[in-house]
Every structure is written in structure tokens, then in C-alpha cells.
């Protein structure tokens, strides 16, 4: 058996790879459960099936999917151009922080304009946070992977400082939390006692917008060309810097919107543990979904489930919540490993009965 490069990348493997990765994750997950002394199949059931076996459970899935999908939608466009914005987490947190601060300011104001102002402030804050990375990249060629990661930590520290300091609730027994937001600043829920808000529709709408931009506009075409071949884009006269600005601002705005959807949705106040890693999980979603809007939608459902599954495993199996991170990590690990099969293939070679004795088995590489 040996591994060789394919003459052309396999389109089948491109779509099969995420499924293969999912299968391997389940198998490994079962092995981990049994190593921890839990019944593997029952545990997988508790992790992946039980959480969504009720209507309420399903609605909770969409509560998780909302911020994930919003972040992932922005990143899809960015990653297609190979602009590696790893900072959705920080843009999410900064968006949530500013939207939260505005919500607190507007606590006593009524009127139809309050919610749009809150949303706009969160979106603009996310854009501003990504804009710092865009400025550093276009002006000083500072690599976006490094700057966006560093900005994540800064944003989280800013949030911690705010809820320990200026935004701390006076009536909160000195807990690091803000006041609860007033109802008029919260995103309306869809129905009844469920926590899903209208932000899920914004996410779906923006996903459709991204699909249209990618496939039907010059901007989307230029984005794809940038991702495929930057030299060709430069040669053809595309304005690379402008494109970087547009893409980073867009994905920052989407992450900011995700922050709003969380803090002005199910959470309803600023707390120290807003950063649950949605911005990082969104990266896994985009790769898992093959940077295609439909794939991103499916992958966001799967990754949303890992959050619910982790919570459920905590309750029913008595496992730590970090099991969510373990599953996400396994998924990404296997996905990257399986993606190797897009460009390479495994060839089964029959045993050779007689080989000349002077033949070595060393593979020769072309120079």
C-alpha cells in the first residue's frame, strides 16, 4: 500500500471528506466514552440524539445555530479569498460589548428605533474591530492571522474590564454582570416560551446574500480569483486592498451581529462568559461546509449540536462540559486528515513475488 498524488484533485473526495471525518469522530468518540467507563452507544445517543428529540430541544439547537451561522456566513466570504480572519471571536465579543453598552444606555427609551440602533451599534463595532486588522494588513502587511488572534484577546479583556468596572450592575451583589437589558432592546423571539429569535432569519438571509454575491457578482468573482491565485488577481488589476477591506468589514459586521444575537437574545445582559468560542467554532463550520453556503448551513447544525450535546452529557452522563471541545477538535482533526485524500490517494499494490535482488524499494522523486 502506498500513497500517491492524484493527477487532479478529486471532487468526490471534497464532499465525502466531511462525512468521513464525521464517521471517524463518532467512532473515536465512542472509544473515548467507553474508556471513561460509559456505555458508548448510549453515550453517543445522549450526545447527539437526545438533545434534539423534543421540540424545545430543537428550538435550543437553533439558539446555538444563530450566532454560529452568522459568524460562519461572514467567514465564508473571507476564506474564499484566502483572507484568514481568525478573529470572529473578538469581533463577536466587541460587537456584544458595544451593543450591550448601547442597550444599557437606551434602557429608558421607548420607540421602534431602539432595537435598530442596538443592532447597528453591534454590527458597526464588529466591523470596527475587524477594520483594525484590515488597516494593519493593507497598510503594514501585518499578517491577518496573527493580528486577528491577538485582537480576540484584547476584546475579551475589554469585556472583562467593562463588566467588572463601568458596566457592572449596581444592584448585582458585586457579581461581574451588567443590569438585565430592557425588553425593548431585546430581539423578539419567534414564538411562545422558546428562545429562538428573529436573528436566525437574518442569518439565513445573509447566507442567501453571500451565495448570490459569490456566484452572481463581479465582487464575488474577484473574491474567488483572489483565493485561487493572488498573482493573477494583481495582474488583472483587481484592487486587492479594497477587496480585503470589504471582506474583513463584512465578516466583522456579521460576527458583531452574532454578538448582538447572543447578548440581546437568550443572554439578555453582559456577563464574563459570553465568549463560548462561537467565533472559533465558525471556522470549523466553514471548512466542514466546504466554504459553500449550503454546506455551511448543514455544518452549523452539526457543530451547534456539539454544544447541546456537551451540555446534555454533563447532565446525564456526569461528564465535564469540555467534551464539546473534544468533539469539535476531533472533527477538525479528522477533517484536515481526510482532506489529504482530495489531493492524494491510497493505492493498494499487490505483493510482488519476484523482484530482482539488486532493486531497492526507495521511491524516486522527480527534481
Amino acid at each position, binding site marked *: 500500500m502506498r500513497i500517491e498524488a492524484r*493527477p*487532479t484533485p478529486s471532487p468526490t473526495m471534497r464532499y465525502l471528506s466531511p462525512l468521513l471525518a464525521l464517521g471517524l469522530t463518532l467512532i473515536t468518540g465512542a472509544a473515548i466514552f467507553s474508556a471513561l467507563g460509559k456505555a458508548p452507544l448510549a453515550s453517543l445517543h445522549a450526545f447527539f440524539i437526545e438533545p434534539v428529540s423534543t421540540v424545545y430541544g430543537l428550538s435550543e439547537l437553533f439558539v446555538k445555530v444563530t450566532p454560529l451561522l452568522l459568524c460562519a456566513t461572514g467567514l465564508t466570504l473571507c476564506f474564499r479569498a484566502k483572507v484568514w480572519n481568525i478573529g470572529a471571536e473578538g469581533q463577536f465579543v466587541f460587537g456584544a460589548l458595544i451593543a450591550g453598552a448601547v442597550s444599557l444606555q437606551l434602557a429608558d427609551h421607548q420607540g421602534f428605533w431602539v432595537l435598530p440602533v442596538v443592532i447597528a451599534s453591534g454590527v458597526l463595532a464588529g466591523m470596527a474591530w475587524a477594520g483594525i486588522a484590515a488597516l494593519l494588513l493593507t497598510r503594514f502587511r501585518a499578517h491577518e492571522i496573527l493580528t486577528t488572534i491577538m485582537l480576540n484577546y484584547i476584546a475579551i479583556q475589554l469585556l472583562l474590564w467593562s463588566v467588572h468596572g463601568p458596566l457592572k450592575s449596581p444592584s448585582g451583589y458585586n457579581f461581574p454582570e451588567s443590569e438585565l437589558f430592557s425588553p425593548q432592546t431585546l430581539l423578539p423571539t419567534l414564538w411562545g416560551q422558546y428562545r429562538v429569535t428573529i436573528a436566525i432569519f437574518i442569518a439565513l438571509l445573509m447566507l442567501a446574500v453571500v451565495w448570490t454575491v459569490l456566484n*452572481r*457578482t*463581479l465582487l464575488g*468573482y474577484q473574491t*474567488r*480569483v483572489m483565493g*485561487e*491565485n493572488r*498573482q*493573477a488577481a*494583481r*495582474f*488583472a*488589476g*483587481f*484592487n486587492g486592498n479594497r477587496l480585503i477591506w470589504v471582506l474583513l468589514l463584512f465578516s466583522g459586521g456579521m460576527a458583531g451581529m452574532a454578538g448582538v444575537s447572543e447578548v440581546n437574545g437568550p443572554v439578555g445582559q453582559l456577563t464574563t462568559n459570553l465568549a463560548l468560542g462561537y467565533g472559533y467554532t465558525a471556522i470549523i463550520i466553514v471548512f466542514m461546509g466546504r466554504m459553500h453556503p449550503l454546506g455551511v448551513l448543514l455544518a452549523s447544525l452539526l457543530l451547534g449540536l456539539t454544544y447541546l450535546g456537551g451540555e446534555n452529557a454533563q447532565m446525564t452522563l456526569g461528564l465535564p462540559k469540555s467534551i464539546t471541545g473534544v468533539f469539535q477538535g476531533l472533527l477538525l482533526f479528522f477533517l484536515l486528515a481526510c482532506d489529504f485524500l482530495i489531493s492524494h490517494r491510497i493505492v493498494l499494490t499487490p505483493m510482488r513475488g519476484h523482484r*530482482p535482488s*539488486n*532493486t*531497492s524499494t*526507495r521511491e*524516486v522523486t*522527480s*527534481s
Partner: protein
Amino acid sequence: MGATASRRLELVGIAKAYPGCIANDRVEMTVKPGEIHALVGENGAGKSTLMKIIYGVVKPDAGQLIWNDRETLIEGPAHARRLGMGMVFQHFSLFQTLTVTENIALYLPRQEYGSLRRLRDRILSVGEAYGLDINPDRHVHTLSVGEQQRVEIVRCLLQEIQLLILDEPTAVLTPGEVTHLVKVLKQLASEGCSILFISHKLEEVRTLCDRATILRGGRVTGSCTPAETTSEQISRMMLGDDLHIEKSMGVGAPGDDSLSLEGVSVSPGGAFAIALHSIDLTLRAGEITGIAGVAGNGQDELVDLINGELAPDAGKLLLDGRDMTAEGVLARRRAGLATVHADRLGRGSIGAMSLTENRLLTAYVTDSDAHGFLHWRPLTERTRELIQNYQVKASGPDDTAASLSGGNLQKFIIGREIAQAPKVLVCFYPTWGVDVGSANRIHVELARLRDEGTAILILTEDLDELYLLCDRVGAICGGQLSPLKPGHEVSMETLGQWMAGTFSAPQTQGVQNAH
């Protein structure tokens, strides 16, 4: 040198298939000791694959290789070297930042060269014996392409060599350097070393080689004694009978100045980039201007500069009388400039994208269906027309650029630019790696565009192409441009001297060129 064998090398029924193409199909060939044997064929005829099989880089699917009368299985390049083979690849395998001696040491086993000092002495003595003088202490990046080739050849000669394989060795040389190489090869052959010489330049083959084997589509289509065969007969074996080659391209009727560079200078952008020194160049409507030169003498920089990717430090660029020195690629394209880059897949197209999308790469500037929203139906239709008009062999607009052969992709790219009716067209290596039929088709199209009043600039290494197409010719060397004169006033010898940097450049006295 082991001249007891009656056959130095014999190939019997060598076959090699890659997915989607048969590179070699039952190839038979014999090379005698001391023979200079040419392997002739178009691009894609399977010459390079065959060389790699002989040198052990690629393993054949079937067939036998007989080395000095014994059937041999070549395990790899190291084994081939031990047997007495040496190969000079088209793209040199030298480390730019190491010296000549260090580069050669890396290629040889330690026990073979002993110490660097002894190796240095051997390099000098081999260089003396064959007239291949190189300074062993120089860093490779300071050497010209011709000198780098000498390093590769000396490297092969340090061992007991019985067969030297050269893959298109003259493609990168000036005419003077070619003459010198021919002398070296003849001396080697007279000492009993066989030489396998890959080329598609028939005149060269006829003057140098004792035997020639002709390949077409992976098969041997003939074998002859070149001196007794006409170029027409050889080219028929190369191309088949049905190919019609247009020999005359007419002459241009120069009109107004379309593009002028006035005293343009650029400092080098990287360690191995070339500076341009005070370039003056004027392109006139309805005229083809040609610039010869060995690769890496400033052609890349000149093309980037005209295209608008590289900003000059001094001087002016006028397009149709307008100063566009400070304008970028897009503004220049809007003003009627089009560029065909030598790097077809790296810059001129996107391999993984469809032909429709590849047409859009530059057509977005002029196509009204590509502003803001893309209207795929008319865009696809226009791509289909382009494919038809330029006889691009593709199954349709949805084919990816990477699936096209070099010649077909080049026809597509040139067609894409011509269809935008440019005022100025820059063609960097218009037919590099393109089969003869496609090259001829491209030449005809360029001549037609010239007759319609476009100013055309061609940068090429192919002097036949230069004299065939160009009204005015010149050369670039070390970032300096020679005078431009009508083609019939410049002899091949003069042009060769210009390519080597010997020309009076009044404004740039004292500027040393690197070669």
C-alpha cells in the same frame, strides 16, 4: 570510456502512460558510443518523459533499457549517475545562494569528491580541458544563465561520463553561447561520450547531430541522418502531413506613437530581481516591436512596469499621449492596454476555474455584462465564440483552464486580449511551450491585429519568431535596452552581441551589467 560496447543505449518497447495521456508508446531507439543523437518532437510529444525514463526519474510501465549491451533496470538518478549518465535539465537544479563548488559538492557523494578544495581543483581542470571556464568560488545567483548551464555540464563531466543528456540546452543561450556549446559537445563526442540532445530547432539538429529520432504523440515517427535530410522532411515527421504553416507575416505600417517609456528606471524589488536602467521605448500603432534577450535580464520587470504592477522610480509612461505613470493596471487597461504574460497558469489564467471565468479575468474591464452583477448566459456565449474563433481545443466554456494544453490555453488567452480590441498589446513569450501549429496560428492573429492598427510589443527568446514577426528589433540585457532598429538592418550576430550586453547606450555609461 568503456567504448567496447556496440550500443551505448538501446530502448525496446518503452511505454509510459499517465492518467489521460500516453506519454510514450512502444518507443525504440539506439544510441551508439560517441554519437550525438537528437531527440526531436513538438512540445508534448513525449521527449521529456523519455529522458526521465532513461535517467531513472520516471519508471516505465513496460519495455527494456539496454545499457552497454546489458539489460539494465535504472533504479533512480543516483544509479544512472553510477552507470555513467549525466543529465542537464531544462530548469537548472542549482541553489542560488551557494557557490559553484558547493553546488557541485551537493550533487556528488562525499567519498567521490573528498574535500571541497580538491573538488575546486577538479572543477578548474575539467573547465580547462573543455573550455568551460567558470569561477568555482562565485555564487550561482551572480552567474548568467549560460554560465549556470556550464556549471551543470561540468558537474556531469566530473564523473566517468558515457552518456550526456541535454534537455533543450540552447533555448536559454545567446547565439554566441550556442556556438561555444556545440564545440564542447563535439569534443566530448570525439572522446567517445554519447550525447542525447533534445530540441525542436531543426537547423541546430542538422548541423550538430549524427542521428535523429523523431517523436510525435509519444511514438517514434521516424529516424534519420539529419545532415542528409531536409528540415521539411523532419518537420513533416514531427507534425504530420496535414499541417499548413503560414510563412509570411507581412510588414507593418507604423502610425502614431501609442505607448512611450521615457527614461524609465526601476530599482530591483528583491534579491534576484533586475533593475531597469533608463529605458526609452516607443511603440507605434500598426507596428510590431520585438525585444530579444536571455531570460532573467529584466523582461519580467519591463512587462510588470508596462502592465502597471511595478511603479518606476524615475521616468514617464505615456499611453496614447496621456501620462499614465502613476496609474494602475485597471486604468491602463481601460485606456486600451492589454498584456499577455509569459506565466500562463500563474498569472494569465486560473487553472481551477472554467474558461468563461477565465475570459472574465481581463474581459471584466470591457464587457458590459460584467459590471456589478454577472450575466452568465451572455458571458458563456461569448466564451463559446472565443473558443471557436481561435480554434481552441476544448469541449466547451465549462472546461477548466488547467485541462487545456499549453498551446490551446495560449490561443485562448491571446484571443481573449485581441477580442478586447486593444490599442497596445504586450506579449511576453507569446509562443513559449506552444506547439508549432498553435504558434503559427498565434503569429497570424498577431499580424492581423497589427494590420488593424494595434501597437504590439513582443518579448521572446525565439529569434526565428522575432525576425518573422517584428518590424523593429532590439534586445534587453541586464536591465538595459539596446537600440531598436528595423529587423533587416540587424544581423543575427549583432543581435547576439546586443543580447550579451554589447551595445552603446549613451545615457547609461558606467552602469555595469551583471553578466
